[in-house]
């Protein structure tokens, strides 16, 4: 089986802070990590490869430094990696990103399934997986909480939706977006780390993928960001201190709508 896992290098948004004076984002010093949701996608692909035999190739579209997440994936057990990088790809929205990634999947050829994490913690759109499925014209299963069975012909997976679980069967090749519920990502292995240090990672650009500048990057993006701001700071109200009984009284006033400014 030939699996591809699309991963992304993202700033660790849990570590991002807002400058309290200016209310702006402080980005420097924030470490870059593999998008946490992607580790589950990677583990799922590797789990099934271990079971059925085959290879797991990780790909990412990003600037040259994104190579480090590819190496991290190899240290966790991916067989090989490709970096999709070109100045022409910068500033892409999900349309252009998925268009580019789909081209890379086509270039790899013979792929049985492409795995995505549920969403990237910087963009937070969760759109790239389904858009790649559309570009490839493959069936898709999103919000996969558990893959029940997988073979060369089809997959049966559980979609975790708001009202319960949908058990869906799809023909291969297929695009999947994987939730954290699906597995527990493995720890890197020593041999994996040694391999990742030496791994040769090809870089594919615009001409390698046979794409033109008006379908990638900023120019290929139907959407544009026009304003970025930090959210309306909801300002703090009154802070109360005192004994537990005093505080309990005041809080009861507010909760029961008695007295004061409920």
């Amino acid at each position: 089986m030939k699996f591809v896992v699309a991963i992304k290098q993202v700033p660790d948004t849990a570590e991002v802070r807002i400058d309290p004076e200016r209310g702006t984002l402080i980005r420097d010093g924030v470490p870059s990590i593999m998008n946490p949701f992607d580790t589950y996608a990677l583990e799922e692909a590797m789990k099934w490869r271990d079971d059925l035999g085959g290879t797991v190739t990780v790909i990412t579209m990003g600037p040259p430094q994104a190579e480090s997440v590819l190496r991290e994936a190899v240290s966790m057990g991916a067989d090989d990696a490709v970096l999709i990088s070109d100045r022409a790809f910068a500033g892409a929205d999900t349309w252009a990103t998925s268009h580019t990634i789909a081209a890379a999947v086509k270039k790899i050829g013979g792929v049985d399934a492409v795995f995505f994490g549920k969403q990237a913690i910087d963009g937070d759109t969760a759109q790239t997986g389904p858009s790649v499925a559309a570009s490839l014209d493959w069936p898709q299963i999103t919000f996969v909480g558990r893959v029940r069975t997988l073979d060369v012909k089809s997959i049966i997976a559980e979609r975790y939706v708001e009202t319960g679980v949908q058990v869906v069967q799809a023909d291969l090749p297929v695009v999947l977006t994987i939730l954290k519920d699906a597995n527990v990502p493995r720890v890197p292995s020593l041999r994996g780390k040694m391999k990742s240090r030496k791994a040769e990672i090809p870089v594919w650009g615009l001409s390698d993928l046979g794409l033109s500048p008006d379908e990638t990057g900023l120019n290929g993006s139907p959407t544009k960001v026009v304003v970025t701001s930090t959210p309306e700071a909801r300002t703090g109200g009154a802070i109360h201190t005192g004994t537990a009984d005093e505080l309990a009284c005041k809080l009861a006033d507010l909760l029961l709508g008695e007295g004061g400014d409920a």
Partner: protein
Amino acid sequence: MNYMLNEDILAIKEICAEIGEKYIIPVRAELDEHNRFPTEIMKIIARSDLFTIYIPEEYGGTGMGAISLVVATEELSRFCGGVAVSYAANALGAMPIILMGSEEQKKKYLPQLASGEKLCAFALTESEAGSDAGGIKTRAIKDGDHYVLNGTKQWITNGGEAQIYTVIALTDPERGPRGASAFIVEEGTPGFSYGKKEDKMGIRASATRELVFEDCRVPAENLIAREGMGFMVAMRTLDNSRPGVAAQAVGIAQGALEEALKYASERKQFGVRIDSFQGLQFMLADMGTQIEAARALTYSVARMIDNGDKGFEKESAMAKVFASDVAMRVTTDAVQILGGYGYMREYPVEKMMRDAKITQIYEGTNQIQRSVIARAMIKEAHRK
């Protein structure tokens, strides 16, 4: 401190730390409470290739040297001494085969141990033979192309969880130091069974059991080296693994220090953080300094071994005795720093103190170590 560890050794350290954070911390209190062996964690350790580091490449290992085993053991011990010794005891069990096994024996057993498919253990100690290893009574009598083993081994780490055991038994009681031989005994061999599992003060995740041999027939090809080499095998094995015990002590101490530092920076009394009190600061400083000294000594011995130095008996004894005494002092101080909370099982330091104690006892008590050190020093002085 910068110990100039290369990339591979650092990779090993990172992997152990990740395993510790993700898998050991959530279960260590429960393993301790219920005396439970960390079977799942051993599988994860295997999958990360950690059982390969002390096994030569040609037998499925990665042969990363003594320094790698020391770093791995130390790092795992930071999270739980019991889990760490369950891991390190495999190195101990494999050592007789690695050091003095035949080509056939190495090819047969080492790959399975490197992959973690099978666990192993080393069996020397008996009820009447602790410090006095020469006092062992387990007999191995040649009978055709087998040896028949009779006797009981006591307090064997990984006993009952391992599948492969390296056992020291008397082949010729009259010959004193040349009276013992080393055998590889596989689980399931008729006549080989397990005795009771011990209920210990600490390292409770580690399984400690009796091994019972009753007319147990072991194939002659499982004899390691030659008849009479048993004590030599045991001594060389213990010399090579002693830095591992030192590493375990350093790791336990490090874990305790980290808990103490964290607590002292959060706990406020008299309106201030308790780490601003000089009394505690002096304690913390001494803890940190002692751990660093123990670590430096331990790593130096590991490097001596990797360098192929012939005589490191004295140094390895020094590392073990120093590090284990440090671990006992540091963990006790850590409990003290956490005060009342330190005494509660809800907090991890009292377990660390219980875990640390064994490092002063096993693989040669600290009293024996001191004798070894003194004798070596005196001999050296006399020679001059």
